[in-house]
């Protein structure tokens, strides 16, 4: 019989306080096949690990069980310890007698009895463990970045500057994301475009970056180190190599549609450049609106174009790429205005959302930086800013805090005061969250230097009366009802995951949280990784965050990706499903339940693609003949554990 060693950790008094560790060790020593059992104050300490190594050598142990804290913490530690002593790492199992025992029970006798069962269960499992070697696969040393906002750009640059090829995919005609729409950024009030455009240029010119704008990821298959990606390149109908940017086409184009870049505050033609600094600097003919792409031919732009850059017959292309890692930076959108009817957004021209106000303030904006009412181009004298429009409202809207609104609303009020010194800015807030370097000071400046009036409370409704907007609210500090006749109302709308992010998540098989933001692997310890290996998260796609955080996470994601791309080969956990061909009848039930398409039928039996298999074991429970089993957690081992748990 295999010789097993059991090592019971006191974890100071964390375990020893409620579990009689000595007794556990004595009990386990009596177990069949247990050749050695001892306890020690801190097994994870160097002396603790040395003692395990020593015992493995002296007592010629085949298996090791460490009864200690949760395997999520020290499983790797002790497997390495075992490996150092010459054991196969998978000959080591953990019995969780802390989180799942000593910390949750008070009665020493009972806790001890339970600890014994947990340890026995691990002993009976480990005895059936196979020696396993990590599976290794070659790595495609290129990365895909989805989303050309600041996060995507930053991640791409970090990857490219470390010498790895990057494919940067952006669904709109230009990179830049929302940041390029902003006027000035808190807390420094430096011009957003001025700091972003250099990065946009750098990324677009970078020899290692393949920029694909007006493109969307259509299909992703494969696994960490070896993803296969299909990218749909939408036709722009304009050949950038020929286009001289003479702008004649827009002059003749008869179609005018709302301009996305100015959030509808201005219009654009069907053939257009999103904004002056757009990258690539090239026209796009938007086929939703251009009649020339429909039966009714117009062709004005075609005829006016000297260099004949316009080609109505351009077709969508599917481009296939192979990459080793993927960074998802799909960003955010503002909460749909339809949801904000009570504040008249979309109904009254002078009720704006934050991004629209950014455009109003922006030098490149519709008003060239003057703050004027969209309705009558008068200068608003009374402006009401409403924070948490759609945030922190579990009943009607989003339960979460959109995090950046407190700061940019302060900024908006401040910018307004700078443009209209004699105007009055009111801010309705629930409370002010200004955590961050120089953030609190920034808010204070808004109040003290710029005389912004903060009103603690919620606005119940906003409605038009003549050319003023009535804002009814309550000041919860004084308890007084407040009525303001405003010229303009600006809503700090909640941040939502960008439209299509969910679709991308599905294609990548990464899960999303209840609000639709991409789920990180661990809220604290793995904030930039998704649960699927090789897929990383950056920016507001994962949760609302401001520019510095987005940039930081982007660099984090990039360095994680580099961690993969810098290897020649990758290692994959070998605890994967294995097939017993004698038992398999090829019914294919496991094939249809496998979440990773890792199982396939081949001449009447199934086969497992070990690299695709994540070892979830759903196949194991589905097979009626126990013909497919996950290594080191076979039905046989679970059966043994059941017996141990029941003292059998």
């Amino acid at each position, binding site marked *: 019989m295999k010789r097993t060693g059991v090592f019971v950790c006191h974890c100071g008094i964390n375990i020893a306080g409620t579990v009689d560790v000595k007794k556990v060790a004595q009990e386990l020593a*009596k*177990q*069949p096949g247990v050749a050695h059992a001892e306890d020690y104050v801190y097994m994870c300490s160097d002396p603790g690990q040395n003692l395990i190594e020593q015992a493995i050598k002296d007592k010629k142990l085949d298996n090791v069980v460490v009864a200690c804290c949760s395997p999520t913490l020290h499983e790797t530690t002790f497997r390495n310890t075992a490996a150092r002593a010459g054991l196969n790492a998978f000959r080591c199992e953990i019995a969780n007698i802390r989180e799942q025992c000593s910390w949750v029970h008070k009665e020493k006798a009972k806790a001890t009895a339970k600890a014994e069962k947990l340890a*026995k269960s691990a002993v009976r499992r480990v005895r059936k463990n196979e020696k396993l070697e990590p599976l290794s696969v070659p790595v495609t040393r290129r990365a895909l970045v989805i989303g050309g906002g600041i996060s995507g750009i930053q991640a791409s640059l970090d990857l490219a500057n470390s010498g790895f090829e990057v494919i940067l995919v952006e669904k709109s005609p230009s990179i830049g994301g929302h940041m390029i729409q902003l006027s000035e950024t808190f807390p420094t009030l430096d011009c957003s475009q001025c700091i972003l455009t250099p990065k946009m240029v750098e990324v677009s010119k970078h020899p290692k970056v393949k920029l694909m704008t007006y493109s969307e990821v259509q299909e992703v298959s494969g696994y960490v180190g070896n993803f296969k990606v299909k990218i749909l390149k939408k036709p722009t109908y304009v050949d950038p190599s020929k286009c001289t940017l003479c702008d004649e086409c827009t002059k003749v184009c008869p179609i005018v549609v709302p301009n996305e870049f100015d959030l509808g505050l201005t219009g654009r033609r069907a053939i257009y450049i999103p904004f002056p600094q757009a990258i690539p600097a090239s026209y796009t003919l938007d086929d939703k609106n251009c009649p020339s792409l429909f039966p009714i031919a117009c062709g004005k732009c075609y005829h006016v174009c000297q260099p004949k850059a316009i080609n109505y017959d351009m077709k969508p292309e599917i481009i296939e790429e192979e990459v080793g890692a993927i960074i998802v930076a799909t960003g955010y959108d503002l909460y749909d205005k339809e949801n904000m009817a009570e504040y008249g957004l979309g109904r009254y021209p002078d009720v704006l959302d934050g991004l629209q106000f950014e455009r109003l303030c922006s030098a490149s904006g519709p008003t060239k930086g003057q703050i004027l009412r969209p309705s009558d181009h008068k200068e608003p004298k009374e402006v009401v800013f409403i924070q948490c429009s759609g945030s922190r409202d579990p009943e009607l809207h989003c339960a979460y805090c959109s995090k950046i609104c407190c700061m940019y609303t302060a900024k908006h009020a401040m910018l307004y005061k700078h443009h209209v010194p004699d105007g009055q800015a009111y801010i309705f807030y629930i409370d002010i969250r200004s955590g961050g370097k120089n953030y609190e000071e920034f808010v204070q400046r808004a109040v003290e230097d710029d005389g912004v009036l903060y009103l603690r409370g919620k606005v119940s409704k906003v409605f038009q009366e003549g050319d003023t907007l009535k804002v009814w609210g309550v000041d919860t500090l004084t308890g007084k009802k407040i009525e303001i006749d405003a010229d303009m109302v600006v809503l700090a709308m909640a941040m939502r995951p960008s439209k299509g992010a969910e679709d991308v998540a599905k294609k990548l098989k990464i899960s999303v949280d209840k609000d639709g933001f991409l789920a990180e692997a661990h809220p604290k310890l793995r904030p930039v990784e998704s649960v699927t290996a090789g897929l990383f998260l950056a920016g507001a796609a994962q949760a609302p965050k401001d520019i510095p955080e987005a940039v930081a996470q982007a660099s984090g994601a990039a360095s994680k990706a580099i961690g993969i791309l810098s290897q020649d080969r990758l290692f994959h956990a070998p605890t994967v499903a294995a097939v017993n061909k004698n038992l398999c009848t090829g019914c294919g039930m496991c094939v249809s339940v496998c979440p990773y398409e890792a199982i396939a039928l081949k001449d009447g039996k199934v086969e497992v693609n070990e690299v695709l298999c994540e070892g979830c074991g759903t196949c194991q429970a589905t097979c009626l003949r126990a013909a497919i089993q996950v290594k080191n957690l076979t039905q046989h081992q679970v059966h043994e554990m059941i*017996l141990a748990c029941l*003292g*059998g």
Partner: protein
Amino acid sequence: MDNILPKKDLSRWLEKMAHAAVYAPRLVDDIWSYEIVTDPGSVTLEYPMTAVPAKKIIFPQREILFEYGADGDSGPEIKERLPEDKPVVILGLRPCEARAVILTDKVFGGELKDIYYWRRREAVTLVGLVCASPPSANCFCLSVGGSPRSREGLDILLTGLGESYYVQALTPKGEKLVREGGALFRPPQPGEKQSAETIQAESEGKLSRELKDIEDVPRKLKGMFDSPFWDEESLSCIRCGICTYLCPTCHCFDINDEAVSSSPLRGRRVRTWDTCQFPDFTMHSSGHNPRPDKASRLRQRINHKFQYFVETWQCYQCTGCGRCISLCPVGIDIIKVVEKVRDHAS
């Protein structure tokens, strides 16, 4: 010395057997079987063939041979579990089943006596009942050396006469049991002996099935071991265990250790029925199975009953109860199979 027991007094006789465990036929949802008598008043001997034969009483489907265990450091201990030797009475047993007991005695007897079997065997008194009319449409006891009135293996033979039983004690055991009945019994009038004999004589004429001229079958079988005959005959066999488990003469068993717990080590060694009709019966751990298909298993069943057993004990290992015929889900008929062997051109 023969006796008469009024049927109405059967229950009172049973009451006098309180010291013994008495088994009698009982109808348990649509199935007749030999069950311990709990309510003597309800016992009737008007019953057809039981599904499970009485062998389950003398040779239970499962018995613990011994228990083993080891506590802590002390070495393993073994505790033998012999059957208790409380007397047992089986009431209304069919003569074919009594003959089956005689056949099983041969197997568990000889120079290597099976103590577990014999404990029960010696404790049992077999009270048989003449089959005035065949209890099953497939009875053929006469063809294999038995008879509806056979006394072989019985301690008492009962013959139903209208309102009473004609009781013939055949062994000291039987006489003892009759004595216990005491005043319940009375000596028969001459007429009663007469009619009992007639009933017994006539019983042999009532069987609807027979298996004739099979003296040569054992020799025939010897030559047919590799014949495709078995493939043909077994085509519809579904390899279940009915024919053998429910055969009163089949006696094969398996022995397993049933672990109760591994620490402290506790368990028991049990003997259970087994059957040559299951693929695992002859399965080797190498993966080789000398009887790989149902053809070889049907052959084994027939050969054992009509060749091997005859070679060893000079009699067929079949008492013609017809269970395997009546209960086979696909109508495999041992009579027809053996007839085909008989008529097989060798």
